[in-house]
């Protein structure tokens, strides 16, 4: 069957269709970008306005005068306003909490992943499964016993207590990441090293760890982001001075003593969100890898 094909018209029709599609594609992409960027934009300009301007203008209006006063208040508070929450001490609390917790949970996760993939034994899959389920449970199920335990050992309302909590509950995730990464490393590496006489720890530190950089970055970013952003543990296990930054932010926003100061709220939100945002912008592709690695179980 041979048909006479009108190539000319076909060529015309598809050209036009393609152009329309391309333009609408870019239109929608930009529209959505605006939707996602809008809150960030609003946060920033609101934090730079005076309360008077905020009341006069609206969400999107640019500040007529750029003031950093809100930022100073959000960070350091006011001298004459003792009793109001401000972020500086809690920022440092979070820092003191995040660094050890990330290091401990990442290191343990790496060790666990190494054992589970290169030193297999009976029931090791069962162990991994139990670990995995541990990462799914809603933490509401352990809040009460953990609160009591921390109280019993004298760690309630302390940064050290939070470090312990985050380290423990980070283990399932970090183990998952490392295990999935190490499983694709050839077992021959370890076998060859054993024949060469190297032992368990030597193989880990001299052979496996040096080639683990990508997954270490992914895990550290993931843990850093989750622990810095935590609110549940922070608000359940600490109340005053040991509180992490997200708890402080929430308290600051909720306490409405006299007048609500939206510019201070926004500045505080930016300060609280800044570290994880910076990490994301600089190391975004590792962030994405962490997201997709954690969900594609295999």
């Amino acid at each position, binding site marked *: 069957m041979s048909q006479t094909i009108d*190539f000319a018209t076909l*060529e015309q029709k*598809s050209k036009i269709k393609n152009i329309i599609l391309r333009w609408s594609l870019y239109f929608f992409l930009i529209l959505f970008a605006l939707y996602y960027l809008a809150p960030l934009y609003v946060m920033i300009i609101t934090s730079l306005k005076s309360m008077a301007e905020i009341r006069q203008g609206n969400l999107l209006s640019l500040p007529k005068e750029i003031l950093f006063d809100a930022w100073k208040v959000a960070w350091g508070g006011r001298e004459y306003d003792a009793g109001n929450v401000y972020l500086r001490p809690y920022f440092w609390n979070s820092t003191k909490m995040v660094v050890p917790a990330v290091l401990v949970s990442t290191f343990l996760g790496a060790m666990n992943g190494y054992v589970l993939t290169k030193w297999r034994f009976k029931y090791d899959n069962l162990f991994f499964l139990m670990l995995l389920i541990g990462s799914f449970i809603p933490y509401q199920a352990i809040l009460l016993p953990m609160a009591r335990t921390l109280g019993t050992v004298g760690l309630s309302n302390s940064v050290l207590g939070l470090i312990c909590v985050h380290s423990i509950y980070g283990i399932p995730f970090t183990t998952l990441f490392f295990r999935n990464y190490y499983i694709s490393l050839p077992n021959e590496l370890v076998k060859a090293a054993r024949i060469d006489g190297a032992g368990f720890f030597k193989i880990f530190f001299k052979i496996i760890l040096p080639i683990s950089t990508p997954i270490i970055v992914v895990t550290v970013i993931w843990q850093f982001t989750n622990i810095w952003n935590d609110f549940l543990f922070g608000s359940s296990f600490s109340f005053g001075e040991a509180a992490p930054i997200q708890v402080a932010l929430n308290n600051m926003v909720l306490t409405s003593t006299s007048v609500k100061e939206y510019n201070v709220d926004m500045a505080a939100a930016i300060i609280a969100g800044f570290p994880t945002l910076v990490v994301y912008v600089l190391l975004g592709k590792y962030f994405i890898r962490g997201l997709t690695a954690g969900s594609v179980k295999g």
Partner: protein
Amino acid sequence: MSTLNINQISKKFGSVEVLKKINLSVDQGKFLVLLGPSGCGKSTLLNIIAGLETLDEGELLIDDYNVNNVEPKDRNIAMVFQSYALYPSMTVRGNMEFGLKQTKADKKFIDSQIKKVADFLKVDELLERKPSQLSGGQRQRVAMGRALVREPGIFLFDEPLSNLDAKLRVEMRHEIKKLHNKLNTTIVYVTHDQIEAMSLATEIAVMNNGIIEQLDPPQKIYDEPNSLFVADFVGSPSMNLIEGAIESNNEGLFFYLKNNNSFRLPISNYNFNNNSYDKDKVILGIRPEYISSREGILNSNYETNLETILVETTGYDQNVKLDLFGQEIISRFPPNINVKTGEKLQISFDLSKISLFNAIDGKRI
């Protein structure tokens, strides 16, 4: 069936010239094979014919219309891929009717087409299965069925047999040949396997580094390669390429080795093209089947004694590697002759099918 014309087509990827002013034409019903090593540009050319790649320069004509800017779906072509590319979430029937459905063809017509093709390719029992439930050979047949159902003007094949095991490959090769014989379709077929090319093509375009080294029917490519590249690429074991020189005296024309005056092959009957060449830098090409024992040769023009280096048996003959005064050549011996390594044997040469090449540019003299 459609005709295809490729005029001066060039294509670059970044700074790499992948196709350099290619010229080609395929008449109705012809089976053209694009043969070459990886990276020679054959797949790129096929993709350009399909409209899946754009060309930088030149024209592509289907049925004499310039289709440079026409979408793949409007070119009336069909393609069979190396990985079969069947739609995993559809049944075999779904895969085969997908293309027709896009043209909003009548349901009755679609069903009758599918029945026709499924019977022809013997996949009628598999119509309700999903690709994951099929074997490699079945998948390949469904892929062909998907192409056949649309009755296109040109069939394109992109290394369709590379993923199959050796036995299946031979079977499917025969299927494709039968298809061509029965339907007389215009086909452009890409492969790096010269046996496939030789057995399927009406014409082979041997490609290397973005150009066509030779465009001829299979037997001509085999007997009269245009260049060292073609001579070496086609034929297994490859053609023997002997370095030497040509001398002309009152007894005629001779090819001799530079380090041994005793070996002189008479080449007066050779059909020279009018190429200029340096008489001292010549390469003589002769296929292993034209070097053998007295009994193994139809037509002996020259005989000498040579030492055997290595013997390999294939079952139906023996490949015997010989020492030709410092150069190694391969000869073919019948299986029943006992050949030992290190022996000196009497070797006969059939010079009716030799090729001479210019050692400097590799072209046929």
